[in-house]
């Protein structure tokens, strides 16, 4: 199904769609409050963008340095060309340690690779410990937002899910009660886990360390209680120096939720005594994106979610409408790189308002890339038959002044004289939700000619 089809389904429940829209907009406004408090906000964005651009243009060097330093610290480094290899590497590490119970903190990369399903097939229990992730894991749904995975769920729905799976009181939807129940349930998982899997917010080349940011502390609890830590990262997560963290940590939480910093910003450099730390570096199409002249800067992304919070389309269609691990504007410029045909509707799910580019902490020109993807998708013939036909027709009309004038006269006559039910036919998608304007009596050309005399 394409984005428009899924979005239509989402919008059927008008009240719910409005609630979703308002929830996301609230997060966007929190971001604004935080950003305006720092007069150096734009300087920080420039700096972050430059650091990332520099890193991407020297990515081989920085990844090698990161590996070298990590290994010196006693960290075991693995490389995975694609999702399948990533999953197999993680499986093998877990099997080697006879790990059956695994806890996992948030990692969009592991979502992308469908790691949970793979490990479950191997007979392992994988528990997502971020509360939002746990909710959707129990609901058997994918996350709908990269920072707030359960933003589409109302408290009553969470209550139902917890009642079914955690045996909480039926009908009790008090967030404190539900979160406390989850705390007890997940604490037991943390204490009994054989291994902890995590994502990576930043991999520092200079020191070989991995930085993970959470508000809940679930990454720290999971990792520090288990004997094995497996940190999974995309190749684009590496940054050159420790001091670069100063820039990124000032931007990340403010952009994501409007907080000055997350509750926990944890630096993992060495495994503790008696424990093992692994890092899996994953390509899975990223080196291809690196080579795309117009799209490689999408790899600067620090996964803050600000673009989703501001996007009028995302807010009113929800993350599931994108049908891709990372939804929203950033998802719409990453996904076509993986499968242009399957994700061809995503760059068109946009008004090109540019708000995403405005809020992006690393200054990715998202709206320009959306536009460029449309052109590439059109040229490849994936923009859908109706669009291709319309574009061809429009080309004919606009290149012939006579046809254009005649058509204009006909349209004005039609709008003035035909009854509404004929105008609002099924070909008039624009008119589905909008009233067409009152037609003027004359075209601009006619008016101008008369005026001149």
């Amino acid at each position: 199904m394409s984005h428009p089809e899924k979005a239509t389904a989402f919008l059927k429940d008008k009240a719910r769609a409005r609630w979703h829209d308002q929830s996301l907009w609230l997060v966007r406004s929190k971001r604004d409050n935080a950003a305006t408090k720092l007069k150096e906000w734009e300087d920080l964005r420039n700096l972050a963008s430059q650091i990332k651009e520099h890193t991407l243009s020297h990515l081989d060097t920085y990844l090698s340095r990161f590996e070298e330093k990590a290994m010196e610290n006693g960290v075991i480094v693995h490389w995975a060309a694609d999702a399948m290899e990533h999953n197999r590497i993680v499986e093998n590490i877990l099997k080697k340690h006879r790990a059956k119970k695994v806890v996992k903190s948030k990692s969009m990369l592991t979502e992308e690779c469908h790691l949970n399903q793979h490990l479950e097939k191997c007979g392992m229990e994988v528990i997502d410990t971020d509360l939002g992730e746990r909710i959707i894991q129990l609901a058997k749904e994918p996350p709908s937002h990269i920072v707030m995975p359960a933003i589409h769920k109302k408290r009553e729905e969470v209550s139902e899910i917890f009642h079914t799976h955690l045996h909480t009181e039926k009908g009790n939807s008090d967030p404190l009660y539900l979160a406390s129940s989850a705390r007890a349930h997940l604490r037991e998982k943390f204490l009994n886990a054989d291994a902890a899997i995590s994502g990576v917010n930043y991999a520092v080349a200079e020191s070989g360390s991995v930085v993970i940011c959470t508000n809940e502390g679930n990454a720290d609890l999971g990792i520090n209680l288990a004997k094995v830590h497996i940190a999974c990262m995309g190749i684009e997560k590496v940054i050159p120096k420790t001091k670069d963290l100063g820039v990124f940590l000032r931007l990340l939480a403010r952009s994501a939720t409007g907080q000055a910093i997350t509750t926990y910003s944890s630096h993992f450099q060495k495994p503790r005594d008696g424990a093992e730390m692994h890092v899996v570096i994953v390509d899975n199409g990223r080196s291809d994106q690196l080579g795309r002249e117009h799209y490689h800067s999408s790899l600067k992304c620090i996964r803050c979610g600000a673009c989703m919070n501001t996007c009028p389309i995302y807010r009113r269609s929800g993350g599931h409408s994108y049908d891709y691990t990372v939804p929203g504007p950033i998802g719409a410029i990453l996904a076509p790189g993986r499968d242009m045909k399957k994700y061809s509707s995503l760059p068109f799910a946009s008004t090109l308002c540019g708000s995403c580019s405005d809020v992006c902490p690393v200054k990715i020109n998202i709206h320009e890339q959306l536009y460029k993807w449309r052109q590439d998708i059109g040229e490849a013939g994936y923009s859908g038959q109706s669009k291709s036909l319309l574009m061809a027709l429009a080309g004919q009309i606009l290149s012939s002044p006579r046809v254009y004038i005649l058509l204009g006269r006909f349209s004005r006559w039609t709008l003035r004289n035909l009854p509404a039910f004929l105008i609002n036919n099924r070909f008039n998608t624009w008119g589905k939700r909008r009233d067409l304007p009152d037609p003027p009596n004359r075209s601009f050309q006619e008016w101008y000619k008369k005026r001149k005399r």
Partner: protein
Amino acid sequence: MRSRDHIISRIRENLPEKKDYPKDTAFDYPEQLLDSFRENLITQGGAVVERMSRDSLIQDLFPGAIRTLDLRRGYSTPDFPLNELEVALFTAGFGVAENGAIWCSEKMLWKRELPVIAEHVIFVLKKKDIVGNMHSAYERLADLTGYGLFISGPSKTADIEQSLVIGAHGPKSHTVVLID
């Protein structure tokens, strides 16, 4: 060809145009370090207490707490499982004014899970050890040690309908005791 070599060579084939590492930029930070630190910590859900004396902090702040640990005294064998730790007291490495965070290094943790597994945490911080912003913080962190973290408040989540809940998986309260 090993995956590593394959990935590195693919990256090399696809490297974008070379861009320089940006020049260093100096940033301002809040003038009133102490006030900013206090304000930002409270915004994040933390508590601030000002004290002259460093004694009997745990008993004063959490009277009645039984399973407690004072990490300032180094390693001690608790007579209860760490999962039941009610209150833990640490020395903060330093504080950051712009966000109310404190640095907690592995050097004071004989078990890495201590600052997150405890039900309540207290950090003692010298007022003069508050730096302005994260840039200053990283200048101070010459050696990261095996594990270290910035903590800016109690554990929290807003994952249930954007409703803020304090005490997600970790501490339900986070108190910084400011001393001279």
